[in-house]
């Protein structure tokens, strides 16, 4: 029998760990209930799409030309138009957050448009406090304007000002629904919670209750101790991962285009990196409160803020962008979003996988170095 690893001891420890997971209500909540809850929150509660943005319209000119333009605005599926009497009222409505922007069609609009040498003024005011929405409003407004120009030119039997028209298609997420990328992203958060928070808590609890001391005084080796924490929580994490995928696809109707096998592979790499970090934390902190604090700051918050799951990395300051390269969750978010929405894109998955592999080796290796078979 190998001295550093006895199969019997490892099996006994894993069995103990499994029984503890099954009997401890808090582990069950973190592993099974919390993920489903998070999925539903991200699936139904949070929506980053700006479909049907409220805008205002002040129609000072009532000519047919102006009305036709107004009709085009009303007809846009992305805009919800409220008509107002004057500019003042619209300004107030925008300040109150009721509308995101407004269009003023001035009195001399149809007059000026008929004169070939003049340009017709059309005032568009947009609430810039939320830049994403602002650019969304701007783009849609421009679309309506172009549509109206085209329509007008055809009616007048003229050629449109330009031959080029832009027909855009959203690939990978054709309906551009944020749910389709938020949900795969939120699976990352769930994996982080299980991998880092749960493991760091259970190991810290062994220290607090004095059971670790009893284990250390038995013939258990360092390898067995580490593996007995890694294996059960790895299985728990993978079960939870596929539970999440199942809920996402079946209940939340998120399309899944990649291969489950590839997801399992990359999920395993991310999970081992998370578990490694969790074990490292609990090796350094020996009480549950400190371990939870550390896990929250070292794993959960970066996964939420810096992984590109909610906040786009390209719009972050460059320094922060550089930092995100060190966050394992970033690579898993990219990988899982790709697997869900685009399918198996090997170059991207391989580079993400390589980084996750490196970080797993780093965290587990460091934990192995820091694990002493002593109390100090």
């Amino acid at each position, binding site marked *: 029998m190998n001295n550093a690893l006895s199969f019997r001891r490892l099996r006994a420890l894993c069995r103990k760990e499994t029984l503890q997971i099954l009997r401890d209500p808090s582990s069950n909540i973190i592993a099974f209930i919390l993920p489903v809850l998070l999925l539903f929150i991200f699936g139904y509660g949070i929506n980053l799409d700006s479909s049907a943005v409220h805008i205002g319209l002040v129609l000072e000119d009532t000519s047919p030309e102006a009305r036709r333009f107004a009709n085009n605005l009303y007809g846009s599926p992305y805009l919800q138009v409220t008509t107002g009497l004057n500019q003042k009222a619209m300004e107030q409505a925008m300040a109150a957050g009721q509308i995101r922007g407004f269009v003023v069609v001035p009195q001399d609009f149809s007059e000026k448009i008929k004169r070939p040498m003049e340009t017709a003024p059309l005032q568009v005011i947009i609430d810039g406090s939320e830049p994403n929405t602002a650019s969304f409003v701007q783009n849609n407004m421009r679309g309506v304007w172009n549509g109206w120009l085209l329509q007008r030119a055809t009616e007048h039997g003229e050629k449109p000002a330009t031959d080029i028209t832009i027909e855009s298609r959203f690939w990978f997420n054709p309906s551009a629904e944020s749910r389709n990328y938020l949900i795969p992203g939120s699976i990352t958060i769930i994996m982080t919670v299980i991998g880092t928070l749960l493991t760091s808590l259970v190991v810290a609890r062994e220290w607090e209750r004095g059971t670790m001391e009893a284990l250390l005084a038995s013939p258990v080796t360092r390898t067995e101790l580490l593996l007995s924490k890694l294996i059960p929580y790895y299985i728990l994490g993978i079960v939870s991962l596929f539970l999440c995928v199942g809920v996402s696809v079946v209940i939340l109707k998120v399309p899944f285009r990649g291969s489950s096998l590839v997801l399992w592979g990359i999920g395993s790499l991310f999970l081992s990196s998370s578990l490694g970090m969790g074990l490292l934390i609990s090796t350094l902190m020996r009480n549950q409160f400190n371990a939870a604090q550390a896990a929250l700051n070292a794993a959960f918050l970066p996964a939420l803020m810096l992984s590109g799951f909610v906040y786009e990395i390209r719009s972050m300051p460059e320094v922060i962008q550089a930092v995100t390269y060190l966050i394992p969750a970033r690579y898993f978010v990219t990988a899982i979003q790709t697997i869900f929405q685009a399918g198996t894109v090997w170059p991207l998955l391989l580079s993400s996988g390589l980084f996750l592999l490196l970080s797993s080796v780093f965290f587990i290796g460091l934990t192995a170095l820091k694990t002493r078979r*002593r109390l100090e």
Partner: protein
Amino acid sequence: MSEALVTLETIQKIFPNAKKPALTNLSAELFPGRITGLVGPDGAGKTTLIRLIAGLLTPTAGTIRVTGLDPIQDATELHKTIGYMPQKFGLYEDLTVQENLELHADLRNVIGEDRKATFKRLLEFTDLSPFTTRLAGKLSGGMKQKLGLACTLLGTPRLLLLDEPGVGVDPISRRELWKMVHDLIDQGITVVWSTAYLDEAELCEEVLLMNEGQLLFYGKPEEMTNRIRNRSFQIRNPSGSRRQLLERALSHPKVMDGVIQGHHVRLVLRANSSPLDLLELDAGENAELIPVNPRFEDAFIEALGGGPGGDSVLAQRLQPIEGDDKTIIEAIELTKTFGTFTATDHVNFAVKRGEIFGLLGPNGAGKSTSFRMMCGLLSPSSGTARVLGIDLKKSASLARQQLGYMAQKFSLYGNLTVHQNLNFFSGVYGLKGHRQKMIVNDMIEIFKLQPFLHATPDTLPLGFKQRLALACAVMHEPPILFLDEPTSGVDPVTRREFWTHINGMVEKGVTVMVTTHFMDEAEYCDRIALVFRGKIIAAGTPDQLKSEIATPENPDPTMEDAFIALVQEQVHE
């Protein structure tokens, strides 16, 4: 004589960032088939020493050999031959008895027929056979302790290290454990038993007596008690207040130490002192001075430089509390349930002014629950708790103004300094301005806290921590004192000093209610109630309880004998 199993040579252990070494210059040898006691108060270095022997800590200096192995270099080999039971027994509480045993059997490679036979033997040995499917967390303290022992015995170790196995466990389980350990010694196993109970020292074959990292004594416990032979006496049937008698005795130059034992007073004389005449102490006409057997504790007190004097400066500055001896603390059918568990089950008692009333029982018996209801920190499920006629359910805060409360493990603020703690607690109890300043300064002077004013309580020696906790509880001069396990883990001299203050205050008319699991401490009480599994199984003066169970074979039973007999009576009923 056979060869030593464990040799310790000039061991020193200094923890990083610690001011004082946890262990200094300790040398000893432990022999097979013997039980060696590591005896001393909290902070003596007992746990550190056990962990050093188990290879869980590295010594700063010195060498350790266990069965010829170096505990650090040869940890893997060593752990096959030792059994170690840490404090709190190291059990997985969400695993059943059987699962805990199986885990440890697998870890120690006990398999096949051997495994079956070992389980059978250990379950019989520990009487745990009927409980194999019960979760370890749901066992009583005594049963946990036995399961912990069974788990450490699985690999048939040569050396058994038990860290405070008897603490807080009921006296019956404690005696059973001793019996079990003696069986093991007959099989040739070496046992190390650490304890803060000095009476347990007398049961060991060899003792390492430790205090604050120093080895005070190493040898047979009889050698230690022989040092004070013919110096222990009991004053029987004194007239007048026995608390005042003790005060006079402790201030007498011939007396080194003294305690109250029910109606009697036990004294230890100083070395080479002439015989004591009871007239010197004004003990009354009927009083007799009877020689008694010396105790290990007496010798420990001498080694620490003798007990404190009999005067309590704290009590002297108190104004006497006037009033008749009417009932001022009362529990009527007091009950507290947590889910399906009844922690306190229809408890009744009444305490008169100027009395010391004690609740005595093992950990988990329901003492602290009753206690917290009496000071309004927990609300009873049914029944009434009254202090000074005030129903605590209705106006707890009004009653609490009249209380001084000293909680288990001294509830001090660890990150405030000593001075800030004093200021804070005096402020909480409504002291302010000049009076607050005066009282805080008095406390600093009485308890000699001046050198520690800017230190935090966590860095204080245990004795000073206890003084500070007492100071915080009595600054507002409450007529009633509630003390929850006030002296657990402190050295006997500090315990004496504490009781000197309490006795002095009681003489001034303060009423005291105290919980304890120290049988000896119960002797200070005027009346005690024995608490077991949530119920009061007996109540009365210490002498009444002891005489109730006296038999021709045991005419002079101890408090522990009384407790065991009364519990067994209860179980048989």
